[in-house]
């Protein structure tokens, strides 16, 4: 569903973040992207989200070149992707419920759909009792669950989790990965970037290893090998 073809990215300060990267993400896959800091993981995600444009090559979702999309189409395209970040990126002025509802409202869902789906997805991540809490009143693990619920609620085709366990203790990290596995088993493609060796070795799924902006390994049942 997602195609990187000979993609290079050079930032305005002449630093090369990616060099001639080619890979494909298949529908229903659980793919992990590993690498040191500065290996290019974040750049890959920014390219997928259309936050950055490649210097060379193309990034396509299905048959559409992401970087040829205009503002409006880009917003529509982003609704097909759910994103979870290491720093959660919740809207601080909105409650857990409102954060998730906002993603649905932005996608143009009706009030009835919002009222029906938000409690369901909060239940899926085990947070139905905290729906009225603001992000500042939640623990790191709880915030990440809200972020996952928000990413999930529009039934995206792809969920990108960028270091989702980076700020969490091992128990919470394990729980977050279990939730992502559950989501993947329900049919959603998941792309995970992480530093966490335990998480990768535990998953036993496809692993792409990036080093210095290039792909050095792509293993079907990979292990953390850096």
């Amino acid at each position: 569903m997602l195609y990187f073809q000979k993609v290079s990215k050079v930032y305005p300060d002449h630093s090369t973040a990616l060099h001639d990267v080619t890979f494909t993400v298949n529908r229903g896959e659980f793919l992990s992207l590993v690498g040191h800091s500065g290996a290019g993981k974040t750049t890959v995600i920014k390219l997928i989200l259309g936050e950055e444009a490649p210097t060379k090559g193309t990034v396509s979702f299905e048959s559409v070149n992401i970087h040829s999309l205009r503002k409006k189409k880009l917003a529509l395209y982003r609704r097909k992707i759910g994103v979870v970040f290491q720093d959660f990126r919740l809207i601080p002025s909105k409650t857990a419920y409102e954060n998730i509802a906002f993603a649905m409202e932005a996608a143009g869902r009706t009030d009835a759909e919002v009222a029906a789906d938000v409690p369901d997805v909060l239940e899926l991540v085990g947070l139905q009792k905290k729906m009225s809490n603001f992000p500042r009143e939640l623990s790191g693990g709880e915030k990440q669950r809200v972020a996952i619920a928000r990413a999930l609620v529009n039934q995206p085709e792809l969920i990108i989790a960028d270091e989702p366990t980076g700020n969490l203790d091992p128990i919470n990290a394990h729980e977050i990965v279990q939730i992502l596995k559950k989501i993947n088993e329900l049919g959603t493609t998941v792309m995970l970037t992480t530093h966490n060796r335990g998480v990768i070795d535990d998953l036993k799924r496809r692993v792409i290893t990036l080093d210095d902006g290039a792909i050095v390994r792509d293993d079907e049942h990979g292990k953390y090998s850096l």
Partner: protein
Amino acid sequence: MFFIKLKRVIKAGFINFWRNTVVSLASVFVMTTALFVIGGMVLSSALFSSLIVDVKDKVDVNVYLRTDASGQEALALKESLEALPEVRSVEYLSREQALVDFRERHRDDELVLGALEELEDNPLGAVLNVRAKEPSQYEGIAVFLEGDPSVGTTPAPIVDKVNFFQNKLVIDRLSALINILQRLGVVVSVVFVCIAVLVTMNTVRVAIFASREEIAVMKLVGASHNYTRGPFIAEGMMNGIVAALITTALFYPVTLWFSNFAGNFFGDFNVLSYYLANIVQLLFLLLASGLVVGFLASWLAVRRYLGH
């Protein structure tokens, strides 16, 4: 869908306005100050206009007729003066009335009254009291009087003296001053309003700067530019509405204090009654200004963080 989105945007704006108490208070305070400047300009320009009308009204030119001029001749001159386009009114004061007025003015002055008794005849001539539409037009009227056959060098002139030539300097200065004041008023108003609007915009910008992460997240979850911008604009417009209501109410104690303080310094003009008579127009003006400033300030501030 449009109305659902509009409803959501307004609701989100209202919730933000309500929850960000400190930021909302600061924005409303600054905007109230800005609107107060705008309202103050409106009220003081009304005050100035009435003051100028008052002063203009006090300026006149007196045409003193000779004692041997007949009533008919005087009325003929009055009519020809009234035919001038510059002239607003001409008041005729007969010799007898002039004497009565003179006595009244000097009723406590024994010496003057005694001297008057010594005279056999009424020493005063009739007077034509001429008012022009604009102070600058007195010169034209005076020139007309000089060229008139009944004045100056022509045989049997009936005009003894026109006091314009004594008052010329004062009248010229006054019309120049009024001109300058009116222009200055416009310039000062524009400058003050610009400053007020800029300060408001900066405050809103700082408030929205704190929300730049929020804007980035909204974009990431796929909100369109308009949907991201909407709640901020709604919030800015709410600031404007609240500030307009506060400002309108605030003008009551201010004008009350001012009218007590100024007394009848400004003649018949009373700021308080002017404010009360025009409160609805003032409220609408301030609401419109508040809405426009709130909208523009938020729109410009968010635009910065929306990017592509």
